[in-house]
């Protein structure tokens, strides 16, 4: 079957569109897989942390940065 230029363009466009949507869906699936893998990872026993754990969100101090004065 011979395709004219318009239908070829349309075909390629659909391939691009489908590829992009599939990429986004696979990316979401990969993200889910990553989260599952992290969840299944063995956790250290309580009181024996073998890695730097992040427990609390940071809330900035009310008096601003106080990170030092800029150079002259």
């Amino acid at each position, binding site marked *: 079957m011979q395709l004219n230029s*318009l239908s070829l*363009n*349309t075909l*390629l*466009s*659909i391939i*691009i*569109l489908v*590829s*992009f*949507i599939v*990429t*986004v869906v*696979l*990316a*979401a699936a*990969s*993200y889910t*897989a*990553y989260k599952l*893998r*992290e969840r299944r*990872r063995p956790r250290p026993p309580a009181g024996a942390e*073998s*890695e*730097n*754990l*992040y*427990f*609390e*969100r*940071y809330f*900035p101090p009310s008096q*601003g*940065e106080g*990170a*030092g*004065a*800029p*150079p002259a």
Partner: protein
Amino acid sequence: MRPRYLVVLFIGVAVMLLAAAAMAYLISRIPFRGHGVVLFIGVTLLLVFLVILIVRYLSLMWLGYLHHIETRLVDPPEESRFQPPVTIIVPAFNEEAVIESAVQSLLELDYPAYEILVVDDGSTDGTAARVAALEGRYGDVAVRLVTKENGGKATALNTGIALARHGFVLCMDGDSRLTPATLRTAMRHFHDPRVAAVAGNVKVVNRVNLWTRLQALEYIEGLNMARRAQGFLRAVNIIPGPIGIFRRDVLAQVGGYDADTFAEDADLTLKLLTAGYHVVFEDQAIAYTEAPEHLLDLLKQRYRWTRGILQSLMKRKAWLVLPKHGAAIWASLLFMLFEAILWPAANILGNLVFAVGALQAGVAAYVLYWWLLLTLLDVTAAAYTIAMEEEDLGLVPYAVLYRYLFIATIDVTKLFATIEEFLGVRMTWGKLERAGRI
């Protein structure tokens, strides 16, 4: 060599403007009348996306070129005589397999006087023993070992900063490798007392599969292009973990690394900028790093980067509202926020909206032209940045896959990470699996 860069820049700018005009024409040709208000809004959003895309590319390329002229023509690295002694801090946690070669490579730096301080962060393997065997003096270079309880990279670096014997410190990763010229080319920037830190040029060493080659391209086209532009403004917003050089007294003044974010390097950089110091970029200060070779490890890295950057920015919300120390720092912080949140969403939605809009309006073939023009932009930017760094031209073809495969995949994780950060979902550091190719 230099006129060629100028020609490449002008060709790049011309191609981008032509592509932008063609894309605007494509959008204008979509017959949205009679297809409802949704399509009209979609087309309007697309035009905004297009304008942002082009402005981003052109401004980064132009500022990057100005940075290139400034650092190569105005202040050539080979003429610098500013070479004060430096302490190189190598944080190491279970790096037994690579730590010896890492120290050996640091002994080959082309620099008159420095010390290598390895901070063993409570390793459970033979890291400390291997470094202890290397302790001593090698000409004007000293190798020292400090061991501490495990507390994470930030605390290891702070320990190294506290125990450093010299006024300048180079912070790196345990698995990074520097080139002999790295230290010499970076230190010249410190003759300006306003410069508190120099961000080096990180390159991917393990270009072994599709994902690592795309990351190699991303480091050059995506990360370095932005860093070069920010370097011209002296407001680099992330000093990369594998290579950053600092004034030690300034680090002490701002309190060193904080351990309350997942991007301690970005957090420290923002502390320096908001304290009024300059942070510059040196593309000859090269550090090779091992990139994640598997997709899930890559997503894990980007998830941590995104949440860490957001945590660092949220600590300085007030700085995002109004410029406090000049427009350059403000613009740099806004750019950080834009790249972390807005751009990933715009990139995915923009492409989807165009595709759906074109299909709905019965002009599906426009998707092909849209993709071709976007790819043309990416290939142009890749060729320009690769030429500027005199990197491997074999990476240019990967620009074809860059936006629709690599960036789309990364952006999905960035979006999820952003949502989880604002929901306060708990996360842990973990340690990336390395293949040990350095």
